[in-house]
């Protein structure tokens, strides 16, 4: 079956497009992209209203789907539903499940669940070490063959510099990045909040930004030593961004990502409006204004490669406890697009094209997965965005099984109209009402 999406603004930076184009989808592939394409016999024509924009499918390269083992928080099915509602056609999921995704069996299980759900594409990320214990390297070749696109011990950094070095060397065989959760465990200690005035006032144990940057410096140095590719996950501290800039300038194979909460919120949120709100507790923590502003600057000047959500669902019961007992993490899939429009594009900090680089082009490039562009012959993974849609965040209405977001009630400009994966419309926002 052929469908012709007609008359839309298309933002496709990988192909240098930002203008009015028609897109012809044939089955699960992009058949043709061009101006004023003619619909052949039997082709369904969908006119796209002028207030919507078609982009390559968005890819969130840092998501916790929690399955197997923590299905009360999220499943592959609920997580991928959350993803497509948020405009993501693909997600890469972290291996800290139970059991850990350190072998092909777990990888295949996740992929089977994803195939059953038929929503977003799922790219599993394997563990660097067996059980993420930081001792023995997992069978990375087997993980790669089973479908893993990267490896990480996320939740923790790779425990020793030696193992990090070996992983960076060994993954060169497969051209896979090593994704690092950068945190010096001894400096983090039992900290639960950014070390600074707010934590001091609230009596919360602090985690300095240097806990992150010191580990990032280690890993960037090892990337230089080995020629392996390191990707710094959920960067939060200005010192880490500096380390990445220095590494890039020296030619190290380093890329990095920032989560929306780290370029929007600060640790002030721990004190007000709701003091000790556990939905402001995540790791790395919300940091101070200088760090938040540095993240914005990095997004603007190109130092930041990717925006990823670190979608970390937790059950209400787990979060409805004392601050220091609550687990770290917030959901992110269903708020990311609106937050990026409202805080980055509409204020004029970045262009629409740059947003698509951050949310689609670069994640695809780093993970070496299809997508990131609207190219003839490529899978028809498309996101249709509604840049001016007024959105009021409603945690209760979210499709993720967990509702732990600090953005509940926020009013934002920018949203998702529809999500198309492999030519199939997997989500159409009823508020926009696009028949597609």
């Amino acid at each position, binding site marked *: 079956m052929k469908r012709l999406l007609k008359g839309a603004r298309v933002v496709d930076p990988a192909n240098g497009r930002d203008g009015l184009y028609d897109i012809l989808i044939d089955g699960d592939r992009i058949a043709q992209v061009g101006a004023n394409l003619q619909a052949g016999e039997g082709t369904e024509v969908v006119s796209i209203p002028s207030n919507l924009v078609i982009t390559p499918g968005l890819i969130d390269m840092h998501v916790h789907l929690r399955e197997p083992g923590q299905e009360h928080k999220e499943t592959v099915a609920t997580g991928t539903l959350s993803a497509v509602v948020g405009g993501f056609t693909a997600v890469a999921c972290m291996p800290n499940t139970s059991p850990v995704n350190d072998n092909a069996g777990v990888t295949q299980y996740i992929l089977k669940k994803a195939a059953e759900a038929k929503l977003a594409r799922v790219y599993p990320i394997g563990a660097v070490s067996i059980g993420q214990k930081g001792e023995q390297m997992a069978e990375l070749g087997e993980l790669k063959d089973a479908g893993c696109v990267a490896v990480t011990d996320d939740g923790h950094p790779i425990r020793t510099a030696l193992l990090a070095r070996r992983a960076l060397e060994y993954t060169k065989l497969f051209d896979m990045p090593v994704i690092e959760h950068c945190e010096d465990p001894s400096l983090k200690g039992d900290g639960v909040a950014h*070390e600074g005035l707010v934590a*001091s006032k609230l009596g919360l144990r602090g985690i300095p930004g240097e806990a992150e940057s010191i580990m990032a410096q280690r890993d960037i140095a090892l990337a230089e030593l080995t020629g392996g590719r390191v990707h710094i996950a959920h960067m939060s501290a200005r010192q880490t961004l500096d380390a990445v800039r220095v590494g890039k300038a020296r030619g190290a194979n380093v890329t990095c990502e920032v989560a929306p909460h780290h370029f929007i919120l600060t640790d002030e949120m721990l004190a007000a409006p709701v003091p000790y709100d556990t939905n402001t507790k995540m790791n790395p923590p919300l940091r101070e204004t200088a760090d938040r502003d540095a993240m914005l600057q990095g997004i603007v000047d190109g130092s930041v490669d990717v925006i990823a959500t670190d979608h970390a669902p937790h059950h209400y019961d787990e979060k409805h*406890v004392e601050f220091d007992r609550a687990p770290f993490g917030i959901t992110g899939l269903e708020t990311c697009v609106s937050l990026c429009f409202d805080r980055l594009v509409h204020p004029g900090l970045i262009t629409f094209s740059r947003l698509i680089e951050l949310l689609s082009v670069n994640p695809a490039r780093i993970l070496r997965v299809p997508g990131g562009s609207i190219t003839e012959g490529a899978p028809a993974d498309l996101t249709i965005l509604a840049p001016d849609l007024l959105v009021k965040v409603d945690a209760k209405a979210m499709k993720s099984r967990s509702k732990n977001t600090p953005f509940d009630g926020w009013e934002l400009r920018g949203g998702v109209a529809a999500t198309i994966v492999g030519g199939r419309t997997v989500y159409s926002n009823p508020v926009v009402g696009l028949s597609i």
Partner: protein
Amino acid sequence: MKKDLLGIDDLSADEIYRVLETARAMREIGERPIKKVPTLRGKTVVNLFYEPSTRTRTSFEIAEKRLSADTLNIAVAASSVLKGETLADTAMNIEAMSPDMIVVRHASSGACHLLSRICRSRIINAGDGLHEHPTQALLDAFTIQQHKPDLAGLKVAIVGDLLHSRVLRSNVLLLTKLGARVFVSGPPTLVPRGIEQLGVTVSARIEEAVQDADVVMMLRIQQERMQGGFFPSLREYFTLFGLTEARIRLAKPDVIVMHPGPMNRGVEIASEVADGPYSVILEQVANGVAVRMAVLYLLAGGVEHETAA
């Protein structure tokens, strides 16, 4: 006052003065042969303690009894926590029995804020984690006032483990609100980041903090928190930061020495100082009852329930 007393942070200077004035009247009750007034008759106060405490719990209980409240002590470490019940559930169960006030001591900072959001009962913070211990700061201020009626302009030195001290945080907030000049001193490993932004002067050496001080307040070295290796040994700590006779002589001649207890003699304070003429440590304990009576009275008796914010 607000519905709850979660911290000094919530109180204005006027409200602090009102507690202190009320405490003066309450203190007088404690000096009568029959130390009981009917003010809180028919009110139920639950003392919900998640951390062991002798002084604070006893002080609250005596205060409640002197005001004729029905009191109930729950030491939770021994019961529900072991059965896996959450703080919120325990609180809602207590709440179902319609107490008027819940006095809470808990090891987690912010635990009282959590309870404040889910309970209609008035919550009084009797110490939450590293955050605040407001009635301690109020009784400290009351004690200072008895010796030096005007707190404005006084030099107050607070010395010890600043990082882990909720007494410090409440006292800094209160004393700066009333215009005292606060100097804090302790090993640099135990100084909370950014504390100077709260309007205090951080002195690396105890001598500088104590010099010409009107009040010296010592904080307990919490030995159970010393696994972190914040300083090499208790012996070295006493050498560098212990309040000795020689050091107290740097202060004003009429200095008073305070300690929230329990004291570690020979660690943060020399016995000669703790038991010396300038020590008001036992007055603090005595005043604790009067100040807590004032807080209970103002919260429960003073105003009727508003809807929980």
